[in-house]
């Protein structure tokens, strides 16, 4: 009995470590692709006038690339605090969907786990945790910690590098830095298209987001995400009932 207990215990702690490493490994390509963005976040912060400590703290405690760069851009063009905080709220609102999606698997965890994983909940971590490829790890907090933690370390090291380099960076779109997002997100989206409803969801979300962006409507991201989800769900209901719509 003692022997069996020992084996079970060691396989459990081994499992934690393995899950942590699997998570880190799974997010590694995305952590690599985000490096240029982290460098930009650091150097742009210095350029706009933050101290090095503030620049690093921004990545360490805010930890949200899109919101950080938007805030720095607004600071540079002299937009006030309320504008910055409103834009932050708008950009970050998609995270509400992520935490809602993860509620069933994470809400029963102890507080320290929920706070840690909530803090680390980025687009990338969410995509990895939700991905079909890692389905067996889906409610494993160690896997999520590995993915979120690895991404956090990468983002902050890249920011440090940007602070040290400190040079002024040319405009994002002209350098094509945002292609890093295109490449990583495609690598995440395409493998998830395994069923017809997911295809419908992706199509509707992409189409409506493009339309909203063309009319420069800032709340478009959340709305088009909602439309995509709804379209996927409706397609699923139709698909399951041989064409009869049963919601």
């Amino acid at each position: 009995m003692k022997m069996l207990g020992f084996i079970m215990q060691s396989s459990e702690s081994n499992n934690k470590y393995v899950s942590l490493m699997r998570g880190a490994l799974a997010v590694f390509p995305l952590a690599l692709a985000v490096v240029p963005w982290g460098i930009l976040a650091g150097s742009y912060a210095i350029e706009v006038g933050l101290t090095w400590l503030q620049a690093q703290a921004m990545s360490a405690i805010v930890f949200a690339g899109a919101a950080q760069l938007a805030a720095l851009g607004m600071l540079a063009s002299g937009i006030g605090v309320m504008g910055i905080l409103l834009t932050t709220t708008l950009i970050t609102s998609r995270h509400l969907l992520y935490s809602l999606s993860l509620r069933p698997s994470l809400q029963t965890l102890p507080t320290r786990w929920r706070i840690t994983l909530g803090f680390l909940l980025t687009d990338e971590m969410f995509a990895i945790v939700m991905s079909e490829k890692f389905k067996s790890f889906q409610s494993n907090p160690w896997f999520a910690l590995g993915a979120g933690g690895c991404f956090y370390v990468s983002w902050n090291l890249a920011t440090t590098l940007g602070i040290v380099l400190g040079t002024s960076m040319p405009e994002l779109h002209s350098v094509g830095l945002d292609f890093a997002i295109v490449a990583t997100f495609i690598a995440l989206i395409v493998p998830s298209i395994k069923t017809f409803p997911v295809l419908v969801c992706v199509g509707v979300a992409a189409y409506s987001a493009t339309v909203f962006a063309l009319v420069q409507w800032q709340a478009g991201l959340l709305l088009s995400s909602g439309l995509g989800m709804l379209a996927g769900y409706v397609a699923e209901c139709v698909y399951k009932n041989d064409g009869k719509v049963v919601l």
Partner: protein
Amino acid sequence: MSWAVLFAMAAIIFISRYVFLEPRLPVVLGPRLQRLLTYSAPAVLSAIVAPLIFIDGEQLYLGVQNRYFIGAMAACLLIVVTRNTLITVLISMGLFFFVL
């Protein structure tokens, strides 16, 4: 930027990420809502990425001279063929920056 603004940003973002992980929040997800939420990842990611691919400047642009569009096509092809995220990201970024 003042420290106060920095902490306020951090608070807003943390709350949006954490709020539904809080068990004391009286929200119960029914089976339909749970099904709907299985589409959240592909929907949000597509909504973020599509305007980057299809819009050049302020206009819709679907042509061979749109580097983002061509690069995105290459990334799609690479992930389908290789099934490997790292290879896809590295090769398509290499293509985008050095060839296109």
